[in-house]
C-alpha cells in the first residue's frame, strides 16, 4: 500500500525550451573522469571481496545451492558494471536482485513447501530425525551415579577418565570398556585428570573436539546392559542405555526391549507394524495431498463458502465505502472556497498515521461491551455487544476498517483531482457545462482512470486483511457448536491461519497450499478487473 501519488502540479505552464540560437547546451559527458572509474573499481572490488568471503563461508557450510546462486549473481554483477555496455542493465540490476531475493525466492519456496508435509513433527531431514529419536531413547541406567570425569586423549583417540567415589580411577574409550588405571594424576579437587600415556584435554581443546566428545560412548563393562558412559558437559559422566538401535543398511529402527522393528513410511515417519510411530518424523514430498485435503475435508468445505462470501463482502465494502468517503471529502476540500481546508486535510489524514494493527487494538478496547468508551460514554452506559454479536461484529469490523482506510483513499483522490489539468475543466465550463456536469462527465471519469489500479490493489489487500480481523475479533464470535474454530468475521486468510496453526500441530505445507489457492482467486479477480478497466493499457 505504498503507491505514489501523481505529483504533477496542476497549473504548471508548459516548459519552454531555450532557443537554440546562440545558447550552447553543454555536451553530455561521454568519457567520465578518472575519479569515476576509480570509484567504480573500488566499489566492485569491495562487492567481489564480500562475495568471495560469502562463497568461502557457504562452501564451508556445504550450502551448494546458495553457493551457486551467489556465484552466478557475482559474475552477473561484474559483467554488468565492469564494462561500458549494458547501460539499461546497470539501472535494472539492483531491482532485479531484490526482486529475486524477496519475491521470486519466497514464491518458489511457498510453491515447493505446498507439496511437502512440512510442519510440526516434520520440520527437518531424516538424519536429524533419526538422531533425535535415538537421543530421546537413551536413558540413564537406574541408580547409576553421575561421576566426575575428565576427557583425555592419546593421539587421535579420546577417552573418559572416571574418578570413583573411593578415588580409584578407571579409563575407557569407544568400544573399550572401563578398566582400572595405575598412577593417575589428580587435580586439586581430587579428580583424576590424566593417566600414563593419556593427556588431559584443556577446555579449549574440548571445545575444539565437541562433536567427537559428545558422541563418545564408553561401555561400562562387557555386558551391554550395564550401559555406556557419556559426558554432556566435559567434566562429568553417567551411564546410559539406549532402547532403540538404528540399522543403517536396512534403514530400520529396532526396539531392543520388545524386538519391534520400525520402518520408514511414505509420509516421513518410522512406524511399527501395529501403527505405533516414533517422533519426530522428517520432511517428505507428499504430492497433491495438501490440496486434496483442502478440497475434500468436510470441516474445511463446510464453512468455506460462507467465509468466501463474507471475504468478498468485506473486501468490496472496505474498498467502496472508504473510496466514496474519500472522493466526497477530496472533492469538497479540493476547492479553495472552504476556509482552512489545509487544516481539515491534515486532520483527515490522521488515522492514516496510525499503524493499522494499533488502531485495531485501540478500537477493540473502545468497543468493549461493558467498559468500552463507545458504550460507556457515547451511548450512556448501554451494553451493545459490538464485537460479540455476529452481525454487530461484522458491522464493527467494517466500520473500523473504513475508518482506517478512508484517509488513504482521500489522499489518492486529492492527488488525482489535482492532476486533472485546469484547462480541461475550463474548456468544459466555456462549453456551458455546470459544476455538477463537469464533476460527473469530466472529473470522475478522469479520476477513475487514474485510481482504478489502486482500487484493485486495495481490494486484493483487504481480501487478505489479516491484521484488522485478528486484532479486533480474532475471527469471532464463534458459534460454539461449529465443528472447527471458524467465527463470523473470519476471512479466508484468518481461516487459513486457524487451519494451519490452530490445531495441535503447525502445518506449514498445508498453509502454503491454501495460500496458493487464495493467490489463484485474488489473481483471477485482479486480472479480470484490470482487463475490464483497461487501466494498464497504453493510452493513445
Amino acid at each position: 500500500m505504498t503507491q505514489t501519488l501523481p505529483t504533477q502540479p496542476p497549473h504548471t505552464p508548459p516548459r519552454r525550451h531555450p532557443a537554440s540560437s546562440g545558447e550552447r547546451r553543454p555536451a553530455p559527458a561521454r568519457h567520465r573522469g578518472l575519479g569515476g572509474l576509480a570509484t567504480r573499481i573500488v566499489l566492485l572490488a569491495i562487492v567481489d571481496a564480500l562475495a568471495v568471503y560469502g562463497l568461502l563461508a557457504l562452501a564451508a557450510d556445504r550450502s551448494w545451492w546458495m553457493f551457486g546462486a551467489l556465484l552466478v549473481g557475482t559474475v552477473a554483477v561484474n559483467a554488468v558494471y565492469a564494462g561500458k555496455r549494458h547501460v539499461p542493465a546497470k539501472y535494472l540490476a539492483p531491482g532485479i536482485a531484490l526482486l529475486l531475493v524477496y519475491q521470486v525466492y519466497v514464491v518458489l519456496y511457498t510453491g515447493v513447501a505446498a507439496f511437502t508435509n512440512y510442519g510440526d513433527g516434520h520440520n527437518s531431514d531424516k538424519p536429524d530425525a533419526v538422531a533425535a529419536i535415538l537421543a530421546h531413547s537413551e536413558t540413564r541406567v537406574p541408580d547409576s551415579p553421575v561421576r566426575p570425569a575428565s576427557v583425555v586423549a592419546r593421539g587421535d583417540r579420546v577417552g573418559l577418565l572416571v574418578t570413583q567415589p573411593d578415588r580409584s580411577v578407571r579409563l575407557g574409550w569407544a568400544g573399550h570398556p572401563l578398566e582400572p588405571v595405575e598412577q593417575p594424576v589428580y587435580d586439586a579437587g581430587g579428580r583424576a585428570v590424566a593417566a600414563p600415556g593419556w593427556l588431559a584435554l584443556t577446555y579449549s581443546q574440548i571445545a575444539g573436539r565437541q562433536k567427537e566428545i559428545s558422541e563418545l560412548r564408553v561401555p561400562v563393562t562387557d555386558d551391554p546392559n550395564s550401559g555406556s558412559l557419556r559426558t554432556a558437559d566435559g567434566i562429568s559422566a553417567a551411564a546410559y542405555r539406549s532402547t532403540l538401535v538404528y540399522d543403517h543398511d536396512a534403514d530400520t529402527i529396532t526396539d531392543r526391549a520388545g524386538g519391534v522393528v520400525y520402518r520408514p513410511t511414505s509420509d516421513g515417519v518410522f512406524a511399527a507394524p501395529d501403527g505405533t510411530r516414533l517422533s519426530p518424523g522428517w520432511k517428505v514430498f507428499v504430492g497433491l495431498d495438501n490440496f486434496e485435503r483442502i478440497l475434500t475435508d468436510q470441516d474445511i468445505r463446510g464453512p468455506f463458502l460462507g467465509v468466501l462470501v463474507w471475504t468478498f463482502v468485506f473486501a468490496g465494502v472496505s474498498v467502496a465505502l472508504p473510496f466514496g468517503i474519500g472522493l466526497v471529502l477530496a472533492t469538497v476540500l479540493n476547492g479553495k472556497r472552504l476556509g482552512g481546508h489545509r487544516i481539515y486535510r491534515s486532520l483527515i489524514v490522521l488515522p492514516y498515521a496510525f499503524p493499522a494493527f494499533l488502531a485495531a487494538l485501540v478500537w477493540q478496547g473502545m468497543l468493549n461491551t461493558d467498559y468500552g468508551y463507545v458504550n460507556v460514554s457515547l451511548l450512556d452506559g448501554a451494553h451493545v455487544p459490538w464485537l460479540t454479536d455476529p452481525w454487530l461484529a461484522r458491522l464493527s469490523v467494517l466500520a473500523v476498517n473504513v475508518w482506517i482506510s478512508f484517509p488513504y483513499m482521500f489522499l489518492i483522490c486529492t492527488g488525482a483531482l489535482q492532476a486533472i489539468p485546469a484547462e480541461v475543466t475550463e474548456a468544459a465550463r466555456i462549453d456551458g457545462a455546470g459544476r455538477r456536469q463537469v464533476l460527473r462527465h469530466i472529473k470522475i471519469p478522469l479520476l477513475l482512470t487514474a485510481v482504478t489500479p489502486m482500487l484493485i490493489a486495495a481490494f486484493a489487500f483487504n481480501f487478505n486483511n489479516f491484521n484488522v480481523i485478528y486484532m479486533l475479533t480474532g475471527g469471532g464470535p464463534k458459534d460454539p457448536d461449529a465443528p472447527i474454530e471458524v467465527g463470523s468475521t473470519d476471512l479466508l486468510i484468518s481461516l487459513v491461519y486457524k487451519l494451519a496453526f490452530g490445531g495441535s500441530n503447525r502445518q506449514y505445507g498445508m498453509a502454503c497450499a491454501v495460500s496458493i489457492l487464495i493467490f489463484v482467486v485474488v489473481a483471477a479477480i485482479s486480472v479480470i478487473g484490470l482487463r475490464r478497466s483497461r487501466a494498464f493499457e497504453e493510452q493513445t
Partner: protein
Amino acid sequence: MRSRLLLPAVLAATLLATACGGGSGGAGNGDKTAAPAASGQAAATGSLTVWADDARAKPLQEIAAAFTRDKGVKVKVVQKGLGEIRDDFVSQAPTGQGPDVVVGPHDWLGKLVHNGVLAPLELGDRAAAFSPVALEAMRYEGRTYGLPYAVDSIALLRNTELAPQAPASFEELLATGRRLVDEGKAKLPVAVPVDPKSGSPYHLYPLQTSFGCRVFGTKPDGAWDPAGLELDSPGCLRFAPWLRGLGKDGVISTSLTADIATDAFLKGRTPFLLAGPWDAATFKAAHVPFAVDPVPGADTAPARPFVGVQGFFVGAKSANPILAQDFVLNYLSTPQAQRALYDTGGRVPAATAVLDQVENDPVVAGFARAAQAGVPTPNLPAMDGVWADWGLTQLAIVQGRGDPTELTTAMAGRIRAKIAAG
C-alpha cells in the same frame, strides 16, 4: 554521476547481507577446526548463542559475561519476542542456524521435543536444588529437558485495606466482595481477567480443579496423559453450570480484560484479583496495600492453579554441545546465577535455596505458596489445540450461549477429534 555511485553501493549492501546470512554457519565450522589438537593454548574456544526475551536477556548477559571471563567462550544473548522464540527455534534449528540455548516456559517442551530440536539434560545431583513442581514440569516422556529457574502461577491478590482477612473459600470471597460493593467501597466483588477473544482457561483453572475437573488425566509416573482428556468429567459437568451462574450474576464478565481487571485492582475498585506475578511490581509502585494468597477453592477438591516453569533448554543441533551443556548445567544452575536471575527478574525462584533467601518478601512468598499448590501446565504438544476450544467454550458458557453441560461435552468431543487427527 551520483546514481552510478549509488547503484554499486546498494548492490554491495545486498551482497553483504547475503554473505553474512550464509557466513555464520561457516564461521562455526572454522572454529571447530581452528582449535589445535595438541597445543595447550587457551585461545577463543568457540561461542554460544542464547535466545531470550526482553525480561530475561539482561540478567543473562551478566552471567554470560562471567562465563566468558572464566572459560573464554563468547556468549551472544539475542533478545527476541517471547511469542517468536518457540516457533523460530523449531524452524531454524534444522538449518544449523538455530541458537545453542533458549530460555522459555516449560510448556514449549512437548512441541520442541516433538520436533526433535532439544537435547536431553542430565541434571544429576543438581536436581535436588529445585522444587519438585519445577522438576516435574521440565520432564517430558520420562526425560528431563530443561534447567528450571523460576515458577509462575495464578494467585489471589487481595487489597488488605478492603479485605483484611484472607477468605477460606471462594464463597466467602464472593460474600466479602459483594458486601463491599453493596457498601459502595468497591465496584466489582472480584476481578477475574477474561480475554474476550480466547476466554480464560488459565485464570479459571484453580476454581475448576476445586470441582475435581482436570484438563488431562495422568499416567502412573505423574506425567500428563494426552489420551486421557478429562474436560467432560463429572467434576467438569458440575463446574460448567456454576461458571454460568457467575456469568449470569455478572461476577465474571467476558469484557473484563486483563488490562481492565488490573486497572480496577490498582485503583481499589475491587478487593480481589486473580493474577500472576507479572503486575505485582506495578501494584507495589502504586502503593496498593495488597497480600498474595493461594486461590481458594469453590468446591471440595483442592484448588490447583497451573504452574508455568521458566527454564533453559539446549538445542539438539547446537554446534557447541559441550559448551552449551557446561554453560547451562554448571553455570546457570549455581545458586549465585539463580540468585542473579531472581534479583533482576523478581520471579519466584525455582531453586529452593534462593527461595529460602528471599522468603521474607511477602509477595514472592505468597506466589511461591500458590505455586506449591499447583500443577505444571501440560507440556504436551496437543495443548496448542486444547486452549482455543477450551477458552471459546468458556466464553459461550459465561455469556449463556447454550446449555453449559452440552457445550462442555461438545467441546471435549471436538478436542478429542483434534488430538486424534494430530
